[in-house]
């Protein structure tokens, strides 16, 4: 007889299911470089072992993701739709990385305000007219830029390293070495990180997304090899 709205309230997804972990990005002299690993986890299980978590969204902008994979796919669709709409305008201009970053933030914030966020932290990297761009946005619609950025657990693992080692004069090779080191630290410390990583950059020649590479870890420390036998408790 009476409506009972409380029995069947509208429910949105309240936690991510299939997730990618840290994304890291830095500016260097002549470009911007971002990196992620290539797995997507369902809980702690490595559900997908070969996923791309960095994509070009224009001729000089790319995004790198952290968080829910399906929401990220939606983000890519939204940006592709935007790109095509801009193509149709046919005025010879394309959106800058800063504009795309701002647009993306508006999308994230609007979804958050509907209590149905796109569960991601995203890095936006770009390079145009000699200027590198590196921005961050997330499921709350936060918006900022920095010279080096990390998402997820990378914020705790990788950012302090980059704070120590980053300089504005870094070459592409320096940047690559720093990112690989940061990724390796994430791999050691973050249970949902993998050593199969992908590095991408934007420079004056456009977007380049490299093939995935496998980082070599160091597992032959004496205590690792000995295990817990010596202390007798089975642990390290």
């Amino acid at each position, binding site marked *: 007889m009476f409506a009972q709205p409380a029995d069947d309230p509208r429910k949105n997804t309240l936690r991510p299911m299939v997730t990618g972990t840290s994304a890291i990005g830095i500016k260097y002299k002549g470009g911007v470089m971002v990196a992620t690993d290539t797995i997507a986890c369902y809980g702690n299980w490595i559900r997908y072992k070969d996923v791309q978590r960095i994509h070009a969204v224009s001729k000089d902008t790319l995004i790198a993701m952290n968080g829910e994979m399906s929401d990220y796919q939606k983000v890519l*669709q939204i940006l*592709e*739709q935007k790109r*095509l*709409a801009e*193509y*149709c305008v*046919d005025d010879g201009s394309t959106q800058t990385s800063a504009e795309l970053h701002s647009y993306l933030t508006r999308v994230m914030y609007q979804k958050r305000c509907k209590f149905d966020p796109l569960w991601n932290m995203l890095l936006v990297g770009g390079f145009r007219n000699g200027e590198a761009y590196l921005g961050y946005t997330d499921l709350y619609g936060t918006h900022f830029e920095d010279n080096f950025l990390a998402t997820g657990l990378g914020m705790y693992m990788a950012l302090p390293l980059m704070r120590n080692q980053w300089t504005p004069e870094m070459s592409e090779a320096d940047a690559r070495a720093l990112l690989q080191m940061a990724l390796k630290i994430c791999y050691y410390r973050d249970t949902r990180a993998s050593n199969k990583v992908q590095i991408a950059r934007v420079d004056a020649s456009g977007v380049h997304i490299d093939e995935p590479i496998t980082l070599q870890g160091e597992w032959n420390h004496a205590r690792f090899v000995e295990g817990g036998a010596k202390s007798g408790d089975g642990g390290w």
Partner: protein
Amino acid sequence: MASIGTGYDQSTSTFSPDGRIFQVEYAVKAVDTSGSTAIGVKCVDGVVLAVEKSLVSKMMVHNTHKRIFHLDEHIGMAVSGVQADARNVMNRGRGEATQYRSTYGDAIPGDVIATRLAGYMHLHTMYWWLRPFGTSVLIGSYDQDGPQLHDVDPSGLSYRHFAAAVGKAKTAAKSQLEKLPLSTLTCRQAVPELAKIMYSIHDDLKEKTFEIEISWVCEESGKKHTHIPADLLTSAVAAGKAAKEAEE
């Protein structure tokens, strides 16, 4: 027009006693009187679209009255007839392309968008509170099945063509298009040919100044619909003018 409507020409929702819908015929008439012609050819490696447009005013900013539009990255539309109507059809076309992508996750095929736009235009011939579109359009596309050229007219008819012309001088243009070697023609070869046709069908007595707009979607353009490079347009226009002068 052979006969006048005698009371049956006010509505699209009523046939005349001899089985005609006069408003649709008037719409076709509106396309032909509005002053522009659009032609297109399907070549071995793509589709080329060309539009002739008269310059409305000497003070108008160059390149601001476009008559060839993108519907999607791989689809172009050249229009003739009432410009405002054409822009409405264009917007619908873009909407269809976007909607197809979000539903099927892939680019809309050329025959699908032509069919959908034909349906949209036909819909405007079925209700008394709507006016048929006073525009005919050419749709050039390049999808998995290769290049395709379609036309859509105010009645909602749509056909696939090797070469097509719509608008004011369509009859003259068609007879010239028929002379082109359509089974072997490439887009590069077609561009100056289309410019020549444009110059030959243009009526100098009516308006002196006009511009040609040419676009293509082909292998050279990466299967994307773009306006042709500026140097190619310049040489095509020069070829058109030279052919016209040689003729005279």
